[in-house]
């Protein structure tokens, strides 16, 4: 057990997976010698050699396309896309190839690969370093989509993702790489070393894909969140005093619908949070599922608190980000509904 930032936990997950399985390879833009622009792969090339961890030309298409071929060969590539905003050139390889290879070949060929990408805003990255494209992956049959909210889960989920036999999209909320940012951007940053989930077991362990985690028990309303928004939800609940039950979904596909249903049936109210734009965001799926599964238990409509339907602006970042003030307002609104 040691205290780790999310970056260190992610790096450790790759090291553990590479240590246990020769077939795990890591590559991407700047991930080799330099160790990644967020330092997530630092030291891996030195430790495992340039054969196992190397720099790639700037072609997300090439990175994912090559990874599909490698996976078909029998490797388990874990590749980095430098920012989730830059995944689109690889979108065809993900959607048309990785996601459907098992299905279309009836298991003759498979694509066990992981695509890691820093996502989300909060670093003044503007429209091209802030996006949360999870819904563009959850719509695609054959993909799994994971969004960790803390170092402990990040390591366990990433190891599980690498060991998974299907392609996994692994979105890393970059705003919480170094600490559990709760959306109070005007307050000092807390480091992970002061958060219980900054305690990361050494060696191998997994957090299974498809299981949500209860972050706060409560009776008044269920909050469904993932990534950075888990911490925003906690802050908002504390700020406004609403007795919220906060579920950290961790995996969007497959989704822990049982945990969601159980909680919403208990509280009778539900708020869904994400940073991505509202329309057709993953919150739409959550709201649709919750109203479908818990209709007769719901005392108020499911509310969504999300990014606006605009590109992520630069200067107005904090007006865009669904911070604790907006979430608290929604919490108060829903318990009164």
């Amino acid at each position, binding site marked *: 057990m040691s205290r780790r930032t999310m970056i260190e936990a992610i790096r450790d997950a790759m090291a553990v997976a590479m240590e246990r399985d020769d077939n795990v390879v890591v590559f991407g833009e700047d991930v080799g010698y330099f160790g990644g622009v967020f330092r997530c792969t630092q030291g891996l090339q030195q430790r495992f050699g340039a054969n196992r961890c190397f720099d790639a030309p700037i072609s997300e298409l*090439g990175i994912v*396309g090559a990874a599909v*071929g490698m996976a*078909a060969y029998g490797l388990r590539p874990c590749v980095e896309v430098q920012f989730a905003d830059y995944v689109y050139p690889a979108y065809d390889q993900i959607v048309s*190839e990785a996601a459907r290879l098992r*299905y279309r070949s009836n298991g003759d*060929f498979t694509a066990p690969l992981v695509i890691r990408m820093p996502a989300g805003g909060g670093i003044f990255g503007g429209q091209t370093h802030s996006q949360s494209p999870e819904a563009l992956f959850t719509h695609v049959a*054959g993909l799994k989509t994971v969004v960790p909210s803390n170092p402990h889960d990040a390591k366990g989920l990433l190891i599980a993702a690498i060991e998974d036999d299907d392609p996994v999209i692994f979105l890393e909320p970059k705003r919480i790489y170094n600490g559990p940012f709760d959306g109070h951007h005007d307050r000092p940053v807390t480091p992970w070393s002061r958060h219980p989930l900054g305690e990361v077991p050494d060696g191998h362990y997994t957090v299974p894909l498809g299981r949500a985690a209860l972050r706060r028990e409560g009776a008044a309303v269920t909050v469904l969140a993932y990534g950075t928004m888990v911490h925003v939800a906690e802050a908002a609940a504390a700020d406004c005093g609403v007795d919220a039950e906060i579920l950290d979904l961790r995996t969007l596909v497959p989704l822990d*619908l049982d945990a969601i249903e159980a909680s919403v049936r208990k509280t009778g109210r539900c708020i869904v949070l994400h940073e991505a734009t509202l329309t057709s965001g993953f919150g739409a799926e959550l709201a649709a599922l919750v109203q479908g599964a818990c209709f007769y238990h719901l005392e108020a409509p499911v509310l969504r608190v999300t990014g606006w339907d605009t590109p992520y602006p630069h200067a107005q970042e904090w007006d865009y980000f669904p911070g604790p003030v907006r979430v608290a307002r929604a919490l108060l609104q829903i318990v009164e509904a």
Partner: protein
Amino acid sequence: MADVRPLTLRVPEPAVRPGGTPVFADIATSEAGAVRRPPIDVAADDIRDLAYAIIRVLDDEGRAVGPWAGTRDDAEALEGLRHMMTLRAFDARMLMAQRQGKTSFYMQHLGEEAVSCAVQRALEPGDMHFPTYRQAGLLVAAGYPLTTMMNQIFSNAEDPLHGRQLPIMYSSKAFGFFSISGNLATQYIQAVGWAMASAIKGDTRIAAAWIGDGATAEPDFHAALVFASTYRAPVMLNVVNNQWAISTFSGLARGSSATFAARGHGFGIPALRVDGNDYLAVHAVARWAAERARANLGPTLIEYVTYRAGAHSTSDDPSAYRPKAEFDAWPLGDPVERLKRHLIARRAWSEERHRQGEAEILDTILAAQREAEAHGTLHSGPRPSARDMFEGVYATMPPHLRRQRQEAGY
């Protein structure tokens, strides 16, 4: 700037359209035997001219001549002939089956059988092809069961892909045939990735990437060249230039370059251009590239110059966009005829044995078809189950899909 004239857009058009007289002025064919055969460790820069020539082995009299001759003996050439004849006859039967409504869709190889049949023989078991939909010769030449191909074409109860995939989009890891994607070009970079994986593991197996002339315009082609060039991946990069991409002639994708082989030059990738209707030349060139790759010398780009004699697919009617008799004017002839003439010239074959061979092959195909049809065809007889539609999306079925399958009643 007063004297500057208005700009104009050039939209390349083929020399002739329906109604016109077919010409192939831009196919500058080299003499058979005329193009040199460099050592496999040649520097890419030293063979730039070869991207503008056409390597040919079979001359007009059917003799195998020049430095590229000699990679196949008569028995092997005969085997090649049989593969091509089988593929051609198979195509003819399946086209008929499609017209009879036994399958939804078919794509044939008429005129370009030599390419996939010969390349298959130049690689080794364990190597992996990443084919397009027009390389079924790779399966035929590898001895893949024709019945299994038909089972998939008919989407019947024995379809190895359980009805999920389109007809002809085969997959066989055991036969070194990567699952065909309906999306053009995507497999090109995957082949490079597979080859990189082989190199990472210190394996000796190599990969072969396949693409059509038209699809070279797709981005995956570029990614493949970049990655193959950077990591010096053990891969053959095959471009089948059959002159047409549905209704557009190869000049549209080629643009201002004289050849597709030349695309390799900007990447320092050695590039060869070969008569794709010359079975022996195709084999020799593919063998050269395979040896290079296996000797860790990296990728080779090969342009196979051939002609798509048939329609693009069963959904296509080429008479709308090219002269009907274009294939007759095609300067590189018919690959089956040319290899046959060669074998007859060498007294290893005869017109009579050829006719006999055709009949035997047809029998084999008919027998395979009877067997396949016993398992059903697209609209009649046994078929893959609807339940199976939910399988294989993931390694293990996640809860939401299980719920959906139940809702569907399976």
